[in-house]
């Protein structure tokens, strides 16, 4: 059997395992196995590729792979669960850069315009993924400001960049071996990644990360066309499809279109003229304890604030004490709570909260009327009843968790500052709402102390 045939067969096995792995990732009980199967698929693919006759020197490969493995393992072990969104963004960027480099190295004398075009795509998508992910990483890790960054003439600069990209696509595809064109394409791709992500605010990051995730797959796909490798296309498009679906889910959860999320930085936030009546009523941790002690059903709704305060372990402790007190505790998770899809679930899993207690929005809302106390921890826009009742509110129409339907609502919050959308939250002014001001972790430990006495 010749080597090429053997490699081909290995690729088929590998593709089958990738698909099986993704399928198993669809259920919490089998997900870990699915991830390992997917990793095995990757291992088979890499080992088979090393047999390729074009590879004549293994020294540099060995060094690069060893270094990459050490760095990858180190980061994966060290990263805190709260820092997961920025880490995914960072890894994503590296994958994009790798596709860009493969695209560049695939350039040879005498290639036709079609290959030139696929190389162009692989450089473009890879470059956008790289710088876009780096900016997302900066925003998520707070090395950059989280709010939208805007400057005068941004729309013009973006339009010109896109126009230049279209022109360079035609010119580059025609003569890919011209290095000047190559540099222009690389520069444009890198610049566009930055331009596309800086006007997007922190709370829209779940959409951006999902989209960049999709791009990294599509970049691998384009590289697959450029070097004629079918496994790159299969794996790349699986990732591309998964990223697109997550993007759609995130957009739907915010009742916004993708273009609205990507371009909203360009339109100023509408000032709502609607007024909110009522007054904000604060409550002390001790009084809150009396209410909690008497409650039999308690719903906890976490948001990004829980991640910031690193309060997930305290939440779990509170849950256990409440359960000891014969109360039922459930969690309500909004799809866009936090900074990436499923962010809250991972944090609560870290604190050992069992996943069958985490209810999605559609499952917790019908139960809300029977909830005695809803505790909102560091969430704001995702529990804002204005999205349901106040036509004209910037988030009107966004599906939210209806905590205001619970008998009593406790809101843990640092101060009265408004959420990302820059709008007041009528929830804070409702008759059945009590505010627990201060650091969420502090407040939780006070409650825990009261309860354990």
């Amino acid at each position: 059997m010749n080597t090429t045939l053997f490699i081909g067969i290995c690729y088929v096995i590998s593709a089958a395992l990738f698909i099986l792995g993704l399928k198993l990732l669809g259920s919490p009980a089998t997900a870990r196995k699915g991830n390992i199967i997917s990793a095995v698929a990757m291992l088979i693919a890499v080992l088979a590729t090393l047999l390729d006759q074009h590879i004549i020197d293994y020294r540099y490969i060995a060094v690069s792979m060893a270094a990459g493995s050490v760095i990858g393992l180190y980061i994966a072990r060290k990263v805190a669960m709260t820092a997961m969104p920025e880490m995914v963004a960072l890894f994503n960027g590296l994958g994009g850069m790798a596709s860009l480099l493969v695209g560049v190295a695939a350039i040879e004398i005498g290639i036709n315009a079609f290959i030139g075009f696929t190389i162009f795509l692989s450089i473009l998508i890879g470059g956008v993924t790289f710088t876009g992910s780096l900016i997302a990483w900066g925003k998520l890790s707070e090395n950059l400001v989280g709010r939208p960054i805007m400057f005068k003439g941004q729309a013009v600069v973006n339009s010109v960049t896109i126009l230049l990209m279209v022109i360079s696509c035609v010119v580059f595809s025609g003569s890919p071996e011209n290095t000047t064109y190559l540099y222009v394409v690389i520069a444009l791709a890198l610049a566009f990644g930055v331009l596309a992500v800086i006007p997007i605010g922190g709370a829209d990051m779940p959409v951006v990360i999902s989209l960049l995730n999709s791009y990294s797959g599509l970049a691998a796909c384009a590289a697959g066309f450029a070097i004629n490798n079918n496994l790159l296309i299969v794996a790349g498009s699986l990732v591309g499809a998964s990223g697109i679906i997550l993007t759609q889910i995130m957009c739907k959860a915010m009742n916004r279109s993708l273009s609205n999320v990507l371009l909203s930085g360009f339109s100023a936030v509408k000032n709502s003229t609607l007024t909110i009546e009522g007054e904000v009523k604060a409550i002390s941790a001790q009084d809150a304890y009396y209410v909690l002690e008497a409650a039999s059903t308690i719903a906890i709704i976490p948001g990004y604030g829980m991640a910031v305060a690193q309060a997930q372990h305290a939440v779990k402790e509170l849950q256990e004490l409440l359960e000891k007190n014969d109360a039922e505790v459930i969690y309500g998770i909004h799809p866009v709570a936090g900074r990436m899809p499923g962010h809250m679930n991972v944090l609560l899993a870290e604190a050992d909260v069992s996943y069958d207690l985490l209810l999605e929005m559609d499952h917790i809302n019908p139960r809300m009327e029977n909830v005695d106390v809803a505790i909102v921890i560091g969430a704001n826009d995702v529990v804002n009843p204005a999205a349901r009742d106040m036509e004209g509110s910037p988030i009107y129409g966004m599906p939210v968790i209806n905590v205001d339907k619970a008998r009593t609502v406790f809101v843990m919050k640092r101060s009265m500052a408004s959420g990302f959308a820059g709008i007041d939250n009528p929830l804070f002014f409702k008759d059945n709402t009590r505010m627990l001001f201060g650091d969420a972790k502090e407040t939780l430990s006070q409650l825990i102390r009261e309860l354990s006495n």
Partner: protein
Amino acid sequence: MEIYVFLAFILMLSIYLGFELINKVPATLHTPLMSASNAISGITLLGALIIAGRTSSPELKTIIGCAAVLLATINVIGGYAVTDRMLAMFKNKKESK
């Protein structure tokens, strides 16, 4: 050119398959799903390997290839390792007691 038609065929089928597979993933698993698919996107490693090992003299392309191998390996190894770490924490009621 036929090879590209064939590759486009693969592309079309894989995208449909991807949509079908991912649509069923529950929200609880979205973060691990994302980091696992992130690791899969490091498949570019295969292309990088062929480029990095093509010559024994360290010319420009070899250096580019090695850089790509390095980055893609970080992406793949780190992605799978961190996904495993996350998934190890997911427990249901029975398991956590």
